[in-house]
């Protein structure tokens, strides 16, 4: 394999992994930016997305339906959770949220195990994307190209939504100053439910998309939550663009680190995070230290 082919395939692959990481990171950062909640259940909701996706795909025979349905259902579940439980805690200390979202992670994890069992389940990708394309004579899975494409589409959609849509404007207003937005007649409670739901739905989208690569398994929550936090810390808690940059950085560090220095690949991710924190304690695009 030529060096060029290697660089090309690994770069595209790093982009596909960054897309998966981005879905996790952006949901986490949106929720934190608006609500100042560190959502410990994010990994569990990502896993829930994969399992709900499995069931929808098994029932309907269509991966595409799973891709649309799982984020929607998990998003509704997230909004419902905010509406019934989180809403009661806004006057309390921040550690109440840590406890409650951590509790949600445990409950979701156990509920998934009881419902779907403890064995990993196969989620086949769509047949149309099961082939390979040849990049400089090297086979590369079409599905990973699709991940890059959907990553770009979702990133642009979220960006345009936050910048252009009325709800996006209200979200930005509420995240800058909730009291002022409230005084101006914005339904802050509704905004919070929406954002929590959207964040959870994005995690579920990541879960469904990752399932053909790693299968739907009980262990998937634990392995992604750390990556998600690292991305958000690097990018700056609450920053949309920050989560995108964080996801790209970690995606590339993981893929190239695993190729060139597999023994230290795990350490690289944390070294990047440390370097960012030393230089900019609030993260690359964090508003304040």
């Amino acid at each position, binding site marked *: 394999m030529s060096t060029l082919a290697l660089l090309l395939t690994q770069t595209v692959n790093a982009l596909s992994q960054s897309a998966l990481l981005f879905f996790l990171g952006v949901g986490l950062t949106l929720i934190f930016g608006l609500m100042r909640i560190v959502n410990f259940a994010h990994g569990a909701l990502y896993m829930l997305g994969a399992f709900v996706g499995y069931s929808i795909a098994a029932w309907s025979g269509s991966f595409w339906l799973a891709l649309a349905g799982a984020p929607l259902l998990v998003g509704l579940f997230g909004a419902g959770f905010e509406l019934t439980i989180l809403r009661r805690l806004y006057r309390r200390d921040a550690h109440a949220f*840590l406890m409650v979202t951590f509790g949600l992670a445990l409950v979701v994890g156990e509920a998934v195990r009881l419902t779907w069992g403890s064995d990993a389940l196969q989620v086949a990708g769509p047949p149309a994307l099961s082939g390979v394309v040849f990049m400089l004579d090297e086979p590369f899975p079409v599905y990973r190209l699709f991940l890059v494409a959907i990553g770009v589409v979702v990133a642009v959609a979220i960006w345009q939504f936050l910048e252009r849509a009325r709800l996006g404007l209200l979200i930005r207003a509420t995240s800058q100053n909730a009291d002022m937005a409230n005084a101006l007649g914005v339904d802050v409670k509704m905004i919070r439910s929406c954002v929590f739901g959207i964040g959870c739905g994005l995690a579920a989208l990541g879960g469904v998309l990752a399932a*053909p690569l790693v299968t739907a398994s009980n262990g998937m929550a634990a392995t992604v939550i750390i990556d998600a936090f690292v991305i958000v810390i690097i990018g700056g808690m609450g920053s949309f663009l920050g989560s995108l940059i964080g996801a790209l950085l970690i995606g590339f560090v993981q*893929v190239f680190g695993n190729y060139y220095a*597999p023994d230290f690949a795990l350490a690289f991710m944390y070294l990047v995070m440390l370097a960012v924190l030393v230089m900019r304690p609030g993260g690359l695009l964090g508003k304040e230290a």
Partner: protein
Amino acid sequence: MHMSGQFRPSRRAMLKVGLAGAAGLAAPAILSTSPRAESGPIKIGMPVALTGPLGSVGQQTKRGAEFWAKLQNAKGGILGRPIELVIEDTAGNPANCVRKAQEMVERRDCRLITGITLSSEALAVVPKLTEWDSIFISGINGDGRLTADSFVPNFFRANISGPMGTRAVSLYLRKSNMTKFYGLGLDYAWGHNSIGVFEDEVKNGKKEFVGKIFAPTGTKDYSPYITKIRQSGADAVFLVMQGDDNNAFLSQAQQYRLPEKVKLLTEIVDLASIRAVGDASLGLIGSSRYSFTYDHPLNNEFVAAWKKEYNTYPDTFEGEQWQAMKVLEAGITKAGGIEAAKLRPALEDIEVESVKGKVFIRKCDHQGVQQGFMVEVKKKAGFETPVPEVIATFPGDQTTPDCNKMAYKD
């Protein structure tokens, strides 16, 4: 954003809870005394990795032991005493495992331990066994050191070890026309141990070992590893993988069309993985610690009973753990009790006929000598997913290393 300001109270609160918990654990177990162990239920401590990346493996050891306990209790237990399994989750963490095992011994009167999932956990527990005056019988732990450098008298291994599985693969390969091999293992005790043994075996067999690489457990993207394997020019890659990592690797290897160029060999073929990856497992050749397709009267009987209970076939570690429980059962019956001083000599040189044929627990290093199996994953009529079919067996004296060793002379 007021990150640090917001986190301070929570950290303090957490610390308080943590300290209170630690104080509770550190309190001396004045109430637990050993004499009770001679009557009453036979308590078996199982600190199992029920969650985490190897959670599906731990769930198998749990089910294997539970099924045995259920059937045995229906027959009146052992020596007229009922069997009670004390099961706790370790999440696959060796420090957790030692702590949970210690609680089971000191507070809950367990004198028998089994079901530990990871070799790293087993290696952390064995140095404590003498102090605990307890017997640990491994149902699935593969690391060769457990019966070699790290061997302790209260440890027994009823299962096929990692080196034994690897040996079966290498004996099989000596007859094949493949000449260049690569190794991919999980980056912990078992992965390094088995890849090392395989490398020696390949070299002993006068073939070429072209490289190895280790992936941390919980790796989600295997493409850098797949690329390395492809670049190595090897005819086959030997995998020492399990759980979620194994599933991720097999799924992605198929997506990259790796099996068209490089044959996939594995130390362990297990059903959970085959079900999880479907056709991506076809053609996989490997040793099997246990396969429900092995034709033996006791196995056929076991498979039928299992199918009736769980409506599915017993998986690798369910069969392995079951065999360990049968060995333990035979040992306790022969010893007439569960005290380490009686049970240890009873288990030494015991021979049990079980689901994989004869197992002989040799006295010198407490390894169960048993035959090795090679299987190939194939499609079979009447089964929804591919199944591992036995393609070769090797007698125990060829697959088991010399006493307290984990490498082979030839």
